[in-house]
């Protein structure tokens, strides 16, 4: 075989292969073309290679050189076509598998906790770290726990029937004293103090109490954007030897530092850097504490009221069986709704109890 024929065959093969690779628009077509030209067994290049045996001996080095050059050219053409296809495939999302990975994932429907629950849990958790155990008690109470033991005598305006939800007496619920929906969670504090004293060993030091009581309370307010006849309170109580108003102020400050703390990523919760949290007391009046104060924290350049507090009135201590000469104590209370609303930008308290799914889904 003449060298020129051999070279002509190789050239035409190279032209065919390059054209076939260039025409392939899918990876299977390209693969077929590869097998046709470069196939190890029946490929056309292989067939021509076999023909080299018939080339004149002296022409063999030239024929071998040409063969290698053409083989390299065809392989390069294939690689080029392959990467072209891969690019197209990734740009077009893959033509073989019509899967669209940009579709949304299957949504996982998770329910949300009510913002009031979230606020309460957060408060409980912080108070827990400060050593206060969360307790609950009955929502329907008697005069003793809601008033008498809390130093609210019969003549006190707070006991006016118009300011409370008394129950009508019914034969099924005949009780010794009139019952009412509790107007404050301090009732639970009375119950806990009574209980620890009942369990106390005579002759030993009076037991200490360190609790937060929380739950629903009821007052006859006309419902509007800021009032609802049912709301939630959280109240703290610490009874022990040597408890002072400085302890009260310090505990409230630690609570606020923790509750309003913002870390580097805490945007949204961000209120006041912990070190800057300050507590301000203003004198006030509550029957169950003396001295009594309103509690403010510094807030956006001013002061924000967060609740009421004071030293447990000696009459309350005596009512449950403590000796005010032996122990002292402090108590504080906060309205959960007000704090939750301010934090979550809720402008109408009634939204909390309408339970619109769109509202609840935000928290």
């Amino acid at each position: 075989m003449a060298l020129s024929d051999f070279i002509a065959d190789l050239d035409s093969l190279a032209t065919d292969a390059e054209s076939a690779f260039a025409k392939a628009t899918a990876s299977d077509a390209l693969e077929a073309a590869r097998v046709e030209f470069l196939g190890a067994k029946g490929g056309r290049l292989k067939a021509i290679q076999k023909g080299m045996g018939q080339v004149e001996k002296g022409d063999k080095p030239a024929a071998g050189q040409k063969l290698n050059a053409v083989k390299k050219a065809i392989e390069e053409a294939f690689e080029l076509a392959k990467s072209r296809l891969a690019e197209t495939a990734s740009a077009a999302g893959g033509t073989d598998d019509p899967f669209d990975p940009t579709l949304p994932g299957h949504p996982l429907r998770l329910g949300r906790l009510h913002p009031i629950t979230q606020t309460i849990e957060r408060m409980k958790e912080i108070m827990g770290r400060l050593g206060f155990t969360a307790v609950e008690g009955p929502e329907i109470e008697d005069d003793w726990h809601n008033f008498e033991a809390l130093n609210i005598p019969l003549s006190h305006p707070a006991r006016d029937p118009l300011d409370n939800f008394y129950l009508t007496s019914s034969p099924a619920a005949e009780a010794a004293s009139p019952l009412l929906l509790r107007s404050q969670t301090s009732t639970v504090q009375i119950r806990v103090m009574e209980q620890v004293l009942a369990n106390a060993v005579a002759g030993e030091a009076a037991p200490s109490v360190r609790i937060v009581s929380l739950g629903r309370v009821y007052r006859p307010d006309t419902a509007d954007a800021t009032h609802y006849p049912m709301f939630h309170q959280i109240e703290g109580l610490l009874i022990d030897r040597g408890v002072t108003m400085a302890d009260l102020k310090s505990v409230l400050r630690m609570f606020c530092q923790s509750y309003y703390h913002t870390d580097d990523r805490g945007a949204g919760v961000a209120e006041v850097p912990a070190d800057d949290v300050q507590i301000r007391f203003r004198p006030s009046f509550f029957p169950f504490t003396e001295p009594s104060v309103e509690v403010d924290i510094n807030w956006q350049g001013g002061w924000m009221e967060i609740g009421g507090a004071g030293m447990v009135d000696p009459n309350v201590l005596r009512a449950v069986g403590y000796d005010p000469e032996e122990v002292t104590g402090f108590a504080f209370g906060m309205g959960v709704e007000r704090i939750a609303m301010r934090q979550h930008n809720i402008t109408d308290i009634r939204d909390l109890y309408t339970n619109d799914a769109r509202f609840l889904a935000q928290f």
Partner: protein
Amino acid sequence: MILSKKWLADYVKLSMSTDELTERLTLTGLNLEGVETVGDDTVIDLEVTSNRPDCLGHIGVAREIAVLWDEKLHQPDPQPKATGPKNSVSVEITCPQLCSRYTARVIRGVKIGPSPDWLAERLRSLGIAVVNNVVDISNYVLFECGQPLHTFDLGKIAGEKIIVREAREGEEFTAIDHKTYKLSAGTCVIADAERAVALGGVMGGADTEVSETTTDLLIESADFDPLSTRTTARTHHLHSPSSYRFERGVDPEGIDWASRRCCELILELAGGELDGGPASAGRSGEATESPEIKLRFPQIPRLLGIDVPESEVRQILTDLGCRETHHCDHCVKVIAPTWRADLTREVDLLEEIARIHGYEKIPEDGQVRMAPSHRSHEDIVLERVRRVVTAAGFDEAMTLSTVEPELVDAFRPWTDAAPLLTSTPVLRRANALRQSVVPSLLGCRKTNLAMSNRVVEQFEIAKVYLPRMGQLPDERRMLALASGGEFLAVKGVVETILTELAIALPLTVRENSAPAWLASSRAVTLHLGESQLGILGELSSEALDQWDLRGPVTIAEIDLAPLLDAAEWIPRAVPFTTYPPISRDLNVVFDEAIRWADVEQIVRTEGGELVERLAFMETYRDADRLGAGKKSLVWTLTLRSAKGTLTSEKADAVRDRIVAKLAKDLGGELRA
């Protein structure tokens, strides 16, 4: 309490700015509500707590300012000259429990006319309507010292006689507002020889009112009972600056002062002659002296956590008007001023020391002792319950504890007792303490549908209130669910809760025992061991119609008490075997009446301890292939032994034993 700064300046030097003044007052007990400029005066609105009626007059607030800025208080000493004959009016109190003291002074020959500008201006700056000189003066004295006064036209007082008595039941009285009020027995009225002329402490009468033609006056200054005044004002919606002050208590020693002050100003501005001496009845001033209060100095750091120098303590108490009767190294004893009825105990004095010395001096970085707190079992369990139901896609709702009474009657899975009722509805018509949370959640569902909210899956954890004879009601905490899913979907949520709480007791259902509203074929009561756990069911089509809801709607209400009792929240590991499991699929045909629960029980009993897992797959019905009234139940049984590798033959033997027992007891026929 609205105060004029100009007026305050009559009694105390105001060297400070308004900001400084109001800031300090706020921090010592008179909270700033607002500041306004009226003409050349500054008007300050201060909130006065109910224990401080002494600050319901300018002199009282001036006294606070004098104490805080160490200034002198200049209080007028009215000594009106009696130039007329001896006071001939008689005063009698027949209800000393409602009126402890009553004084009447008489001025004859006054000329009613407009008030001078300075007086009118002062009242106007407080927002008080200006009437005539006499009425304006009594209002002026009220806002000066806090003691309400009333002036009668003496010419209209029959018999020149004042009787303070209880009203007769149904007695009628026409007030200054020309409305007639029907009084109930026990209301304190001021009467003349013939009829009631005023509601004590609340409002005067129309026909004894001072008018342009009045010449002779009777000036009343008295002390009316707080509770009775409040009741009367509330009953008849007659709240006034006067009733407001009597409700909080007036200074018993200030009664005569106010009377003299009023007479002095009337003589000066309206003329006339004062009769000699007041006509009085009731407790005299001397009897009102308060008891001695002892303040032990060590109590100051014991309660406040700070030391206050003894000299400062004594100074504060004296400045506030206390009379010191004793002092030594250990304590000081004082008698509180008559205008401070709130000071009766050592702790009351401690509060005075704290607020005047300054709460800002109490440190806020004290070393509070550490103490271990614990989370209650209930808290931990409820958190897990919430985790499961939110993971199941339920949002937490929160609804009112009371409902309309008919809703209690319509759905009551827990009791038949009549609901507890509040004397006034808590909201709209909701006056019945609920006995199930389900109706409230259905109400929310309806609201949400009206809002076109597509997916409404809600739960609430709240109490129901079941009456109990002779004691506080049984308040039971419930988990209520309302779902748009079907029965088995919601049952699955309940089962998952039990799994998550590691409850070992079996959950069983009873058919045909669930309450109204539920579709009878898809409603059950749930039981945990021996206790009733709750109810579960799909709403009947009637109930759907009644609530305006589209089905399916499945509800559940779970009593959390048995869950709390049975929950184990500290898991304990058990060893597990490494021998391989072996599974068998069973497909057995039964009559429709056969329940899976019965099948399951046999499978577990016959399989014994080899049963590792029993997974129900499906129910298959085909009348042609299985026959009418038949169904096939398909399940996978996984067996594993702790003692060794289970052989195929052994597994088949277990399966055959089960199939035989199912055939014998339940008529089951192996299909494949």
